[in-house]
């Protein structure tokens, strides 16, 4: 935590403010101005051009009865919970790499981790779409080959009653209402966030070897080591990831848009708040309403971030 200063000391350190000036100026000009414009327009009946009518809180009143929006919050809730679980592989991978005996290997593994980051996102999208392709995709081939398909059919027949899996018919992963959320969750397997791993590794570096030695002497097993030594030390970073993840998931809609289009796909199952905002602005031309949706979304993100800051504590 930053040290609290007496006013006298603060006055003495006034040059410190100069350090913030460049950021502040840039941010104020290039980020506050557009943001303020969005807030302003949320009070207008505005179709994106010149014409705007001041309608006060009308947009916000409409939000309350917006069925699609509230349904989209259910979807995003599921995705956020899934994404929280998707943090685990990165943490484990970071710990695994950190625990390696050989520093040389640690180094090379990190290098290999960085390399895929360079691959343009378009390539990744291409490959994952190919993965889910109903006719040529790997996923359906693997399911057919391993008999996973038979299992799914049985599951569907006895428990789910969705009536979507049939022998001899390829599974349309991205065009079947029930399968869209599962597909979005599978997307990106094994869910390694390179940046996350690097951040955790940076945190783990501060664990001295002597800590491990002491633990080894006490006969602590590796799971306990993880819980008691490693995890607490990277809690700052985990919390950081968590905040970024929640913000990213709530704001994000790029993947849903690219895969399912602006309408949220079959059954509207892929409709998330960000996409709905986009849909209103660009499909329906209701820019003013989209701005109001943005403000509501902002309040949600703010609340979640505050909760996160309050309950995910960092013990030093």
């Amino acid at each position, binding site marked *: 935590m930053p040290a609290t200063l007496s006013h006298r000391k603060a006055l003495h350190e006034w040059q410190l403010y100069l350090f913030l000036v460049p950021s502040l100026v840039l941010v104020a000009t290039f980020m506050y101005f557009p943001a303020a414009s969005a807030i302003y327009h949320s009070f207008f009946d505005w179709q994106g051009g*010149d*014409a*705007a*009518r*001041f*309608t006060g809180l009308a947009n916000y009143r409409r939000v309350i009865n917006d069925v699609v929006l509230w349904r989209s919050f259910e979807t995003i809730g599921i995705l956020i919970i899934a994404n929280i679980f998707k943090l685990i592989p990165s943490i484990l991978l970071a710990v695994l790499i950190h625990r390696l005996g050989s520093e040389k290997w640690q180094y090379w593994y990190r290098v290999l981790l960085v390399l895929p980051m360079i691959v343009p996102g378009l390539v990744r999208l291409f490959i994952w779409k190919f993965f889910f392709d109903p006719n040529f995709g790997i996923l359906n081939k693997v399911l057919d080959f391993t008999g996973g398909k038979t299992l799914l059919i049985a599951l569907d027949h006895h428990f789910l009653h969705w009536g979507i899996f049939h022998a001899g018919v390829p599974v349309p992963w991205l065009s079947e209402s029930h399968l869209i959320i599962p597909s979005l969750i599978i997307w990106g397997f094994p869910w390694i966030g390179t940046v996350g791993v690097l951040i955790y590794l940076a945190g783990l570096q501060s664990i001295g070897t002597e800590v491990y030695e002491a633990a080894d002497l006490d006969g602590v097993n590796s799971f306990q080591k993880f819980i008691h030594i490693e995890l607490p030390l990277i809690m700052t970073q985990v919390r950081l990831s968590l905040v970024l993840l929640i913000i990213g998931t709530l704001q994000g809609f790029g993947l849903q848009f690219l895969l399912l289009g602006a309408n949220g796909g079959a059954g509207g199952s892929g409709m998330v708040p960000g996409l709905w905002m986009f849909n209103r602005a660009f499909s329906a031309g209701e820019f003013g309403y989209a701005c109001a949706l943005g403000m509501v979304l902002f309040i949600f993100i703010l609340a979640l971030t505050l909760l996160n800051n309050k309950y995910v504590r960092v013990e030093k």
Partner: protein
Amino acid sequence: MRDLTVRLFVVFSWFIVSAVFANDTAKLQDAWTSASRALPDEAMAGFKQIPASSPQDREAVYGQAMMLLTVQPVTRGNIDQSVQLFQSVIDKDSSDDLGITAKYFLGRIEQIYRFEPDYAKAIAIYEDLFHNHPEHPVAQRAFVKLVLLKLYDRIPDAERAKDFSAFESQGSKLQDHDAVRDFHLVMAQACAKFGFSEEKRLEHLLAADAAGVVKDDTKANLLVSIAEVARKLNRKGLALQYYHKFLDECPRDYRTYTVQQRIAATEQPAQ
């Protein structure tokens, strides 16, 4: 010497004043040109430049009132202020061009500009206007709006039919080309919409055509409509005349094949 000075002064000041007026007129024209090109901020600035002492002030106020309706963003406050300005224009003279037009726009404000339109008020204003100045083109326009409003405002069908026949007789008094044409277009549409007589519809369509429509698209639709209604009323000659007129005037229209078939079907029994 003194006489000369006075004379010079008079000439000079006349020159100045006329120059100033001419300047104001040019400014007004510029402002109206901006307004016509959907640049309300520029137009507003133009109208505000004209001083209250200028003889053009009244028109400038009228212009400001107009622009208050369209300067973005539109607010309730702007609309109320616009009403006041229009009223001040009317107060000075309610029977010249500007006064009548200002009154007409008071009606438009109640009808379409207000966030919560007040049709009753608008109707009253239009009726008043047409009653007091039946000769003025803008008042005749107000009458067309009145027809539209009364026919489409929610009233029981019985009254609507009554209004319709009342309008038919009143409408014959119209002289302004645009008002005549638009009146008949509206009446014809109302016949189709509310199921009034087809004969009347045909009459109004023909009257609109006689008055002369100016847009190509309106023209094409009108020609086909006349022919179709005439065919339904079994006035084959008229139908054929207009089908052919349509084919001549709109050779590349997507309806040509259908119309050719209609011609064939209409001609057949006659042969």
